[in-house]
Structure formats: structure tokens, C-alpha cells
């Protein structure tokens, strides 16, 4: 059996004197596998992603093991990790406007990702940039390459970010709420783009979201995160058919409001699960 592209074992992350943001998390992503990591705001899903990329702030204390593309990540010097990021592993963030440099033309930003990791003749870089922009469904790739981010729509910007994430054909793409800032229609096109691009590149994916319905469009396995722990890890079909943890049952119910008859009260997570004795938390 081939080794997983990502292996996390007993990962904990602590900031200051607070409760651990991530508390003993273990999972793996096999080559080409798409895993969804879902949970509410503050459950620790983004911190997990940052830990995997070695992007945690310095004051974070970590323990456990993270293997990425066969190499350990935790406590590695940044220079060594930089060779990995954008090459074997790439990341797509929530807000495309902050992920792009507003003062640099889009084509140069994509070319930079290539140039950082590959020795390519100058003329070939340009060709590769136009090719990947075309592949992510941007019409008129030459015009887009010559545009600044603010001249593009939100959907176009997110396509550029997807292009940058995929241009070096990584083994793993980590997506942190990549469609949350987008309209439903743009979200639908970006999701289908991710679906086809990941399939074409044969890349695995760790897809982070609070929205089970979104995750279900792409992923085949789901990790449910709650208070820094993974409380359920199962194939999507099983999560939907027989969710085990009461919190997961709540998530499935709240993601299905299109099936609730009009006029009926919508199910909430609190109907299924609540933090013991903590009334305020139930209001979340």
C-alpha cells in the first residue's frame, strides 16, 4: 500500500494558558482521497490546517506528529517547509482578495508559484500560466493574466487562487472554507471546478468547512471536529445514513433544511446535543 500524503497522529495545539485548541487529533489522507473536516467556528479545524502546513504562529505549542508527503512538519525550519508549500502541498483560503497581492498582476503571481519550485525557461512559464488559467475556466486567459485582482470578480479571483494551488500538481490541496465568502451561484461553479481539477491532478484534498452540504459535494470521507477533538470519522454515506455522535446528528439535521416542510420549526444542533449543563453554549 502506498503511504498517505498526510498523516496526523496525536496532534495537540495550545495557545498560552487556554484550553487546547486542538486536543490529540489523529487522521490520515490517502493519495487522491478527499476528506472533509467539519465543525463549528472555534472547533479547531483551521488551527489543524495551519499546523499541517507548518503555518502556526510562534507562540503556539504543539505536540504530536504531522507527516506531509513523507516528511515531518512540526518543528521544522521554515526554509525547509517553504520548499514543500505550493509544490507538494498547497492551500486555498477563504477570502480570495486577501490571498492575492493587490499590487501584482495575476499572471505574475501564478508565475511566481511556478518559479519558486521549478526551473523553467521564461517563455515556457508564460505558456504554463495561460494554460492553467484556461484550465480553471477563465475565459480570455491572456487578458486575465494582465489584470490586477481588483479588476476581477470574486468568482474569477477564486479561480485564480485555485489555479495557483494546482499549477505545480501537488499531492494534497488544503481548502479552508474556500467558498464561504461567495454567492451560491459562484460557489457552485467553484465547487465543480475544484472537483474536476482535483480529479485531473489526482490530488488528495483536505476540505475544511462548517457546511456539511458543501463538503458533501466534494468529499468521500468526513471528519467531525468538536472542541478540538475529532468525534467522528466515517465515509460520507455512513455519516448521512447513520451518524453516531449526537453532534453529528445535529449537523446532518441542520444541513437538511430544504427537506423541512414550510411552517415547521427548523431542527437545531441543540435538539440533538449540548455541552453539559452550560446553558449559554446551547445558544450558539
Amino acid at each position, binding site marked *: 500500500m502506498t503511504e498517505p500524503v498526510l498523516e496526523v497522529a496525536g496532534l495537540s495545539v495550545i495557545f498560552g494558558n487556554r484550553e487546547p485548541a486542538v486536543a490529540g487529533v489523529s487522521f490520515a489522507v490517502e493519495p487522491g482521497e478527499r476528506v472533509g473536516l467539519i465543525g463549528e467556528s472555534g472547533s479547531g479545524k483551521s488551527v489543524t490546517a495551519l499546523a499541517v502546513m507548518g503555518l502556526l504562529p510562534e507562540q503556539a505549542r504543539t505536540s504530536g506528529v504531522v507527516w506531509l508527503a513523507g516528511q515531518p512538519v512540526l518543528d521544522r525550519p521554515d526554509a525547509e517547509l517553504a520548499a514543500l508549500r505550493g509544490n507538494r502541498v498547497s492551500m486555498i483560503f477563504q477570502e480570495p482578495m486577501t490571498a492575492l497581492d493587490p499590487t501584482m498582476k495575476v499572471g505574475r503571481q501564478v508565475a511566481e508559484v511556478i518559479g519558486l519550485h521549478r526551473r523553467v525557461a521564461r517563455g515556457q512559464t508564460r505558456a504554463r500560466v495561460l494554460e492553467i488559467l484556461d484550465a480553471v475556466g477563465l475565459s480570455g486567459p491572456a487578458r486575465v493574466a494582465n489584470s490586477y485582482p481588483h479588476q476581477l470578480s470574486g468568482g474569477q479571483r477564486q479561480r485564480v487562487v485555485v489555479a495557483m494551488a494546482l499549477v505545480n500538481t501537488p499531492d494534497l490541496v488544503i481548502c479552508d472554507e474556500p467558498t464561504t465568502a461567495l454567492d451560491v451561484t459562484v460557489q*457552485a461553479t467553484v465547487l465543480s471546478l475544484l472537483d474536476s481539477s482535483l480529479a485531473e491532478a489526482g490530488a488528495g484534498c483536505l476540505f475544511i468547512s462548517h457546511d456539511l452540504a458543501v463538503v458533501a459535494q466534494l468529499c468521500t470521507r468526513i471528519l467531525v471536529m468538536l472542541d478540538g477533538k475529532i468525534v467522528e470519522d466515517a465515509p460520507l454515506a455512513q455519516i448521512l445514513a447513520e451518524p453516531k455522535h449526537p453532534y453529528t446528528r445535529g449537523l446532518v439535521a441542520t444541513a437538511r433544511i430544504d427537506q423541512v416542510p414550510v411552517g415547521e420549526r*427548523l*431542527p437545531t444542533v441543540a435538539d440533538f446535543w449540548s455541552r453539559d449543563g452550560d446553558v449559554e453554549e446551547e445558544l450558539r
Partner: protein
Amino acid sequence: MTSVFTATSVSRLYGAGRNTVVGLDEINLAVETGERLGVVGESGSGKSTLIRLLAGLDRPTRGEVRFDGELISGRPEHQLGFLRQGVQIVFQDPRSSLNPRMRVGDIITEPLRSPLLRGRPGVPVDKAARLAEVLEQVGLPTDSGRRHPHEFSGGQRQRIALARALAPRPRVLIADEPVSALDVSVRSQVINLLNDLVAEQDLTLVFVSHDLTVVRHLCDRVAVLQSGRIVERGLTAEVYAEPQEPYTQSLLEAVPRLPDPS
């Protein structure tokens, strides 16, 4: 039925000359007393422009907007007290719509201290009593007033924004994407709360969203906006079941759904 709002041939243009952008294009719309109207469309379709005009936060380039039959478009702010009391808004993101430096109690009672509203018939005079009342209505603990917005979760902050909107006893509530910045798991709680409040207090609701599945649970009528025009309108149940316009269909199909339980 009497109309709360009427918008007649309303256009809103931005910029001038060759760079003119059409925000709204000759819109005609009436919102009746007690109805729940959903306004649906993509970013840039003009939904926020429309409710800003209804709420008197912006002026139309052409056409007129009336509230209770009285003209509001083009009138100076000091003449709009009746509108400010009658209509309150809840915005999309409670992180930016609540002042982080103010205590929640001061945030919620701020409309009661406004010179435009203070002393108007129907506006509560006892601020402490009204604060306790609205906190209870939105399901927040009674001691919330002493705390600051950052001490609350996203869903709780949207409850604070709702409490502030309810404080001056408005008859109309305008909600601009009030659940799209919230976790899906919190979304249904806020929708349930809105449903209860609108029913209990006989409010007229104008609810803006890009998500028709959410509108379906809150609104009996819906208007679909595209590029500044209303392209489809009708009963929500009918539009949801059989959308006539391809644009409405594409909005509906774009909503991510879980596979059917088998």
C-alpha cells in the same frame, strides 16, 4: 390591505457619464402590511441597493419611495423620524454592525436615545425595562447588557443586533442576509427566532438573501432580482416549486444539498 412601502419607477445609478453603473432599473414594488417578502439575487443584483432605498439610507436617482403613503425619497433626515421608528434593519455581519467598544446594553438601547426617536409616541421610555424585555425575546441571558460584543458567539451577536432592531417597537423589520455570515449549525436557530418574533409581534418582514431555501422558510412572497430588475415575483411556494425564469432556476440549483437519505 394597505401598503407599507411603495416604490414607483425607482432607479439608482452610480457614477456619471460613460462610467454609469445601473444599480436599480425602473423598479416597481409594493410591500403590504403584515407580509413577509423575500428579496433574492446574486451579489450585484441590486438587493442591498433596494433595501437601502426602502430604509431611507440612500436616495433614488429617479422615481419615488413611500412609507405609509408618505414620501421618504429626497427628504432630509430630520423629517424621517416616523420612518426610523417604523422600520429597523438587521445587517449581514454582526461583527461589523455592533460597535466593539460599547456595552451590549448601550448598543441595544441606542435607538431609544436617538433624538429622532426619543419622545415619539410608541417609543419605550424606560430603557432598562425595554432592554430586559428585548433580551428575553431574543433569548439572551439578562446580564448580557453589561458585557461587550466580543464575549458573544456569532449567533448570539446576531441576536443582539435583532434586540437592537426591536427596541423602538418597529412595525417593519428589514433583514439583509442575516444568516449568511453564520455557521450552518447556527443558521436554523436564527431563522426559527426570526419566524417566532415576526409572528408574535405582527411584524412586516423584508428579508434579503441569495439562498432561496432559507427564504422559503421565512417569506410568503418573493421577488427575484437580476442586474437591477425584478425578473420574477410571486408566492414563494410557487416560485420555489416551479421557477419560471432560467435565472431563478439557476439560483435554486446552485444551493448545495445533501444527497437524499436512503
